Structures are given as C-alpha cells and as structure tokens.
C-alpha cells in the first residue's frame, strides 16, 4: 500500500485519527529531536521537551492549512518555540549567571575561551562549539540545510524569508564555520 503523505496524515490527525498521529510522530520524532538538539546546543532533555511542545502546538493550534507543505510548517513551529525559549528572561538570566557549563555553548557570537576548548574534548564537541558561535539566524539555516537535508525552498518556507536571504545566510554561516573549524582541519591533515 502506498505510504500516506505528511499532509494526508495531518488531515486525518485533525479529524481525530490516532493511527495517523502515530504514523506522523514516528516519522518526524527522530529528525525533529535532532534539529532541536542541535539548536539547543546538545541539551537532550531540553530538546525532548521542545519536541513535545512542538507537537502539542501542532495539535492545539488548528492553524495548519492543508494546501501547505507540512514539514516546513512543523519546523517553523519548532524554530519559533526554540527562539521563544532562548529569548525568555529566565533562560537568559541563567546563562548570565553561568550555572551550567553547557550554557556557555549557548552564548552566540562569543569567541570560545581556552577553558571551553578544553571542555570540548569529546568527538563532535568542536563542531558543537563552532555552531554555538554562529548567530542564531545563521545556525538555524546551517542546521536545516546540512543536518536536516532541507532544500533552499523548504528553508525559505520554514523561516518565512526570501530565497536570496536563505542563500546569503548559508554563505555567511558556512564561511564562519570554516574560519572556526579550519585550524583543527589543518591539524588533522
């Protein structure tokens, strides 16, 4: 039997179909968790909470238009929720007080200190730190493009920005990543 599209499943979910909900969640749970995990700087618990909150919004808001692609809409909600979370006063305060080493990775556009570099010894932490240094608008497009495999058009729909802006943000983001990751790269070679 042909697999139902996201849009067909969403229409069924809005009619109260539990089977469709299970199919939709199973399909998107892992990619969405991966996306929010990277936006949250590797905080597993926070990313799981954001996944749950995103899907609750999907069910409660009733704003989905069935002629729109589902995936960009889903990721738009997830992105907005993550942004709202990091903008909240309590979170910003916690970061300022530095009650967690992880919080250092959330601070955007800051140069990593030698101590931070020492913390990122595990595999991938260098990349995580490099992404954390990008501005939020650049990090989101890089994650959508290179981890989620979104097309440029899908990113534009998700973030509701013009295609040209997507390209320019990707270009800036990738060049900044190269600047940060290049010294390591030379060392590896």
């Amino acid at each position, binding site marked *: 039997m042909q697999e139902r599209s996201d849009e067909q499943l969403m229409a069924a*979910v*809005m*009619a*109260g*179909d*539990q089977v469709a*909900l*299970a199919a939709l*969640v*199973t399909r998107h*749970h*892992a*990619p969405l*968790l*991966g*996306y929010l*995990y*990277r936006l949250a700087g*590797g905080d*597993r618990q926070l990313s*799981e909470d954001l*996944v*749950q909150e995103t*899907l*609750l919004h999907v*069910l*409660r808001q*009733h704003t989905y238009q069935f002629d729109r692609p589902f995936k960009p809409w889903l990721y738009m909600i997830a992105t907005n929720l993550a942004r709202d979370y990091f903008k909240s006063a309590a979170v910003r305060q916690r970061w300022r007080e530095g009650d967690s080493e992880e919080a250092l990775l959330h601070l955007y556009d800051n140069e990593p200190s030698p101590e931070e570099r020492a913390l990122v010894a595990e*595999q*991938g*932490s*260098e*990349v*995580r730190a490099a*992404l954390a240094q990008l501005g939020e608008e650049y990090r989101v497009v*890089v994650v959508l*493009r*290179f*981890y*989620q*495999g979104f097309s*440029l058009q899908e990113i534009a729909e998700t973030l509701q920005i013009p295609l040209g802006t*997507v*390209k320019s943000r*990707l*270009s800036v983001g*990738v*060049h900044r*990543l*190269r600047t940060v*990751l*290049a010294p*390591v*790269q030379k060392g590896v070679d």
Partner: protein
Amino acid sequence: MPHPQSSWPFERPEQLADALREQGASPEECADLLPAVRRLSEWQAPQPEPADTRRLLAHLTPELPAPSPVRQAIREHRQHRVAFLLATARAQVSLFGLGFWLVSALITLIGVGAVVVLRNVVPDQALVLQALVLRISGPLLAFLGTIVAFRGRGARVLELELVCLPSPLQLAIARLVIVLGYDVGLSLALSLLLWAGGSSQVLALTLSWFTPLLLVAGLALLLSLRLSIQVAASLAYGSWLALLTISTISNLQSLLLAPALLVLPGCIGLAGLSIGLLCLHADMHRLLPHP
C-alpha cells in the same frame, strides 16, 4: 546510557558539494569550504528509542481533536457539496406535495392557452396583451412556490431542521433550487410551445413571464425576513400586480415595462434572493420559538 546516533543526510561526498554550489558557492569556494562542512557530521544527535516515541505519543494522544460524529458526518458530506445539495433537494421534493406540481403546471398551461387565444382573437394588440397575461401568471407561480417552499418556517419545524444534518440554509437553498428549477423547466416548455405555435416573439414573451417571477420570489424572500411567509408572498405579488395595473392604465407602461428593461426585474429578483438567503441564515434565531 548511550543513545543511537542520527544519520548524516549526505550519503555521497558529491551531494555536499552540490549543496554548496546550489547556495551560490564557486568551485574554488566549494573546495575551500567542503572540509569544514564535512566535519559537521562529527556532531551526531541522539536517536529516540521506540519507547521514547511511545511515551511521546502517550502525551499527545489526549490532545487529539475529537469531533462529534455529527461534525464528522458534516465534514464528509462537505467534500461532496454539490452531490449533497442535490440529494437534499431530492429529499425535499417529497415535502411539496402533488398539488403544487399540478397547480404550477396548470397556471403555465392557462398562460399559454391565453397567449394562443389572444393571438387569434386580437391579432393587432396580441403582443401587448400576451405579455400582460404572462406578467400576471408568471409571478403567480413565484407566489405559490414561495409559500409552499418556505411554509415549514411558519409551521414551526425550525427546531427539527436545526437538528438535521443539512443546515436550515442548505434546506432553503435546496427548496429554491427545486422551485426555480421547476419554474425554469416550465418556462422552457412554454417557450417551446410558443415557438411551435409560430410566435415570432418567443424570447420577449418568455422574459415577460420569467423575470417578474424572479422579482416576486426575491421580494417575497426578503419580506419574509420580517413578515410571515404568507404575508410576505402576498405583499410581493400584490405589489407587482399594483405596479402592473398602474403601468397599464397610465402612460407609464412604455417606461416601466419597456422591452429594453425586461431583464431588470429578473436581476433585482436574483439580488433579492441572494440577500434573502444570506440574511435568512443570520436571522435564524428570530424564528426560534420563545420560551
């Protein structure tokens, strides 16, 4: 406990280079950027276990919309709106009774008969008199149809209609479709009869009959928003007859009922029907019985 790791969406190295090119990087830039971009795969995200997904579903399931069976049935029917309207109209046909169909047909036949007789008896003034007869008999059908089609509102069946699957507005549209459809059918039959009888002014005579019918139906529906359906229909038909009388006995006939203005009553009637239907929906609460 270590979690399973997510997969990297770029299976082949060329795909990564293609992605960079697509976003506007030149070949030299691609070569420069690729090593850094390739390193992104070093940071893997955890994959949820099936148990995690089940737990998430357990949280989400209570939030599923739970439309009532009635709402679900309405939604299913809306997907086939035209078929649904036709089925509703078919169901409403039984409410009209045989008398309505026979009387309507009889009025039409009398109109046609009068037209034929007048053509033979007074050939010099035939067209004016024929038009007059049709302008009286046509709206009479509208008067009859409006009373029959909307008598349910006066008969206090609105409570019953409100609990039916089709909305009262859909029922009203369905009834209008039936009545006007039948009248259009009669109008076409009349035209055919006149054409077969050798009349040279078939279109003018048909319009003389049909456009006042629309006018009276529209006016009756509009008036029924504030008056009982019998009073509204009588007032609409009475007003039309008064206008007809005044224009016939005075010199206004050439002005009010000029051939160029034959379509005007029909347009006014259609506008009245549209406004009446829209207001009928918004005005429905007035028709509910007061406690």
